């Protein structure tokens, strides 16, 4: 897992690079540091050797060997000096701080002689640099720095009383001083250790910082994306990423959401049309099967009713059979209408009366449980133009659902009706829209919030695509699918004939951006602004003629409530929360009915608290 982690790889790469840089830098640094340390020691050694030379010069001239011995021995005892030796031209050690060395011969090829004697004919002058040498006599002994100081012949030497040296000699002997490099080596080691420590610290801090950055900027979003992808792959198309970033990963997340949106829409459509197709088949089958028995019941009962004109008691009972069978007929028809998506037969009606009739139908069912039915009906409710049978069906469905939600427990259903006024924006659905060449723009293939969307094409240079406007007039939630803003010279055209759908010479009165315009057949021009956050819209014919009177009916229960996840699917056919008890058609049919009345049906629910369905139907259909 760790090895596959992109953060680890990135951190590893960065740390390796920095490590290399620090390594190279430290190496050069230590090199130059040890070089300067050594040259410092060399200089010191040279001074020392000069000091020894001048210290012993007088004794040399006096040829006082004892004193020279003593001086050299004393100097050699100093801690910072390894040893001091003087050897003559032939390589014999004359004086030494180490007693046993005296009298021994030094090999000319040896360490201290090599510099001058390697060239066959010995050199007589040497630079300080060349007089020093570093060597390690044994594997366990510390490194030593040796400096040779040739003792040149001087007039005082050959003219001295001892006549020890002839005038022709240039170099009389060599003073060799060796100094231990323990201190210097310790310093160098310390520097090396410091460099390593620094490198380690840098690695630690750097990997921490890079790791944190990678984690925050790359790892977490990538992990979220992966989780989202798994979720979507697993079928949860409602999964959305929260995008709070403006970098490439933010873009990716946006694109991902966009893709999921489209996928969800496509699936929903497929699902819906699939469901509708099977619903249609089922409904047709059921209707066909049920028609013959219903025909027999209806014909016999209505025949009997005709025959029992003298007996009002019997006739009243038969009337119930006839009217309920006719209701069955309407239900079957509605089922087919729903499958066919046809429109209700509307008549003037009193919504309270419809609610009352619906309540009567399920009274018995409620009495069996311990459910109380409270009605709070507004007596001054305006008359509505609706299909009374269909609306009754809606209320029966809602009340039965409410009773089922209460289940075995005690509970109450509350039905309230009242007149309200609503602004057209957010209520009126655009069910048909056309371009100037009369091409239909409402495309059933694309939906926004489960409603067929107004579909337009945008073009900007090479870039083109479809956008789907929410068919609810004035509502937000258009699917603009990465369309650049209109003010950037984007064309908006009919997908069929490419006629422009930008209102010419008009600008949004709120933000000044170009606006779109299309016609709703027989209902005039709809205009709107697509700029983010503006939301300006105008539909003169509806805005001015809008009758804002609505009748609102609430059916509330204190039952088990509906889980949030199920709410978006509530009105889909065959979606049921009742298990085998439900057909999954009730709310789908209800939704279809209310929608066909140009009304809305919405739901609010909280698990364990209850559910309320709100049906709003315009007073003027």
């Amino acid at each position, binding site marked *: 897992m760790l090895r596959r982690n992109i953060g680890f790889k990135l951190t590893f790469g960065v740390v390796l690079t920095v490590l290399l840089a620090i390594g190279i830098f430290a190496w050069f640094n230590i090199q130059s540091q040890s070089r300067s340390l050594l040259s410092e020691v060399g200089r010191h050694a040279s001074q020392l050797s000069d000091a020894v030379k001048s210290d012993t010069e007088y004794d040399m001239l006096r040829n006082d060997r004892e004193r020279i011995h003593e001086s050299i021995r004393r100097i050699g005892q100093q801690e910072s000096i390894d040893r001091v030796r003087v050897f003559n031209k032939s390589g014999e050690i004359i004086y030494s701080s180490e007693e046993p060395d005296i009298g021994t011969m030094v090999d000319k090829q040896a360490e201290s002689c090599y510099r001058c004697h390697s060239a066959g004919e010995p050199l007589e002058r040497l630079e300080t640099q060349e007089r020093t040498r570093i060597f390690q006599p044994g594997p366990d002994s510390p490194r030593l720095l040796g400096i040779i100081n040739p003792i040149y012949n001087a007039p005082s030497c050959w003219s001295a009383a001892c006549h020890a040296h002839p005038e022709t000699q240039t170099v009389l002997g060599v003073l060799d001083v060796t100094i231990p490099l323990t201190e210097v080596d310790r310093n160098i080691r310390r520097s090396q250790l410091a460099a390593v420590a620094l490198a380690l610290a840098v690695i630690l801090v750097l990997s921490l910082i890079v790791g944190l950055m990678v984690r925050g900027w790359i790892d977490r979003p990538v992990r979220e994306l992966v989780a989202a992808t798994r979720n979507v792959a697993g079928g949860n198309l409602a999964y959305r990423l929260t995008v709070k970033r403006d970098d490439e990963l933010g873009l990716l997340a946006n694109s991902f959401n966009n893709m999921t949106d489209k996928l969800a829409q496509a699936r929903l459509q497929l699902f819906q049309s699939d469901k509708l197709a099977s619903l249609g088949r089922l409904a047709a089958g059921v209707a066909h099967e049920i028609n013959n028995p219903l025909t027999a019941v209806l014909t016999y009962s209505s025949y009997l009713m005709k025959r029992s004109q003298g007996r009002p008691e019997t006739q009243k009972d038969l009337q119930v059979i006839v009217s309920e069978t006719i209701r069955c007929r309407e239900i079957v028809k509605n089922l087919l209408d729903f499958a066919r998506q046809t429109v209700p037969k*509307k008549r003037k009606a009193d919504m309270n009366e419809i609610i009352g009739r619906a309540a009567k139908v399920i009274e018995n069912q409620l009495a069996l449980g311990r459910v109380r039915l409270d009605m709070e009906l507004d007596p001054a409710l305006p008359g509505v133009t609706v299909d009374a049978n269909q609306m009754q069906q809606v209320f029966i469905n809602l009340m039965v659902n409410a009773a089922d939600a209460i289940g075995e427990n005690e509970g109450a259903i509350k039905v309230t009706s009242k007149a309200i006024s609503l602004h057209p924006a957010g209520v009126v659905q655009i069910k048909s829209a056309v371009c100037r060449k009369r091409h239909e723009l409402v495309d059933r293939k694309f939906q926004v919030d489960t409603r067929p969307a107004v579909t337009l094409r945008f073009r900007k240079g090479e870039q083109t695509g479809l956008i789907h406007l929410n068919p609810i007039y004035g509502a937000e939630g258009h699917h603009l699918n990465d369309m650049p803003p209109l003010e950037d010279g984007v064309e908006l055209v009919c997908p069929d004939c490419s006629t422009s759908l930008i209102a010419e010479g008009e600008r949004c009165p709120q933000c000044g951006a170009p606006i779109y315009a299309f016609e709703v057949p027989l209902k005039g021009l709809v205009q709107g602004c697509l700029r983010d956050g503006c939301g300006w819209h105008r539909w003169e014919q509806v805005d001015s003629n809008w009758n804002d009177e609505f009748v609102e009916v609430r059916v509330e229960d204190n039952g088990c409530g509906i889980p949030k996840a199920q709410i978006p699917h509530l009105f889909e056919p065959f979606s049921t929360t009742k298990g085998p008890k439900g057909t999954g058609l009730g709310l789908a049919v209800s939704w279809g009915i209310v929608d066909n009345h140009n009304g809305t049906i919405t739901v609010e629910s909280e698990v364990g608290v209850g559910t309320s369905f709100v049906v709003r139907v315009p007073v003027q259909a």
Partner: protein
Amino acid sequence: MSAARDILVVEDEPLVAQAVAMVCGDEGMTVTAVDNAAEALRCLSEHHFRLVLCDIMMQGLDGFQLLAELARTGNPTPVVMMTGYSTVENAVKSLAAGAVDYIPKPFTADELLAVVRRSLRSSALLAAAESAGLERGGTLSFVPCPNHYLRLGCVSWALMEDEGTARIGVSDLFLKAVEGIRELELAEAGEDLAQGIPCAVATAPDGSQHGIMCPMSGKVLEVNEDLRSKPSLIEKDPYFKGWLYRILPSDPESNLQWLSL
């Protein structure tokens, strides 16, 4: 051929056949019921019936094949189809195939009788017209649809207008068959109508109610308001001033194939 009988019921559901026989029999009509189309064709070749009430979906030969067979043999007996709402398209198709009317199942006794009486009268009128038509210019008891009008069976007509809209109305034969209109219940502007589904309900002077089958699906753009104040206008001038609605056809192509000139 033996003596004329009134009604032949072709229905494979015995209870429905019985109920229909009972309702019609109670009104003094003679009813023969058979449970398949082959049997019905044999009956029709042996006896004369005034009307056939026929289910569309049956085992063996179905209602369409029965209609085709009648047309092939030149049998003029009028056929009324009985079918559920699930097969309105079938009903419309059967009208194009020669049925005179259809009644959606399930129906009440009154609805059945209304259709039966209306069809009996309209076929009598048609038969009269046919014999009168032999001598051209003879006075007809009803006004046939003008030439370029599209008809749905003998019930309603549609006239395509230049703007892509259509005007729809009811045929004089239908009006004569229901023997006048006392009341007319109309749809509202904005409503969607479907071909084959009643778009208006006419109440005859005898109180019987007759759904007027819509000839073409579409949205009502305009209702002939004059009819509300003066329903008699429809009888006076059913093809011009007595139109019912102006509609915006929703599916003219598929609708047109079931309409005849």
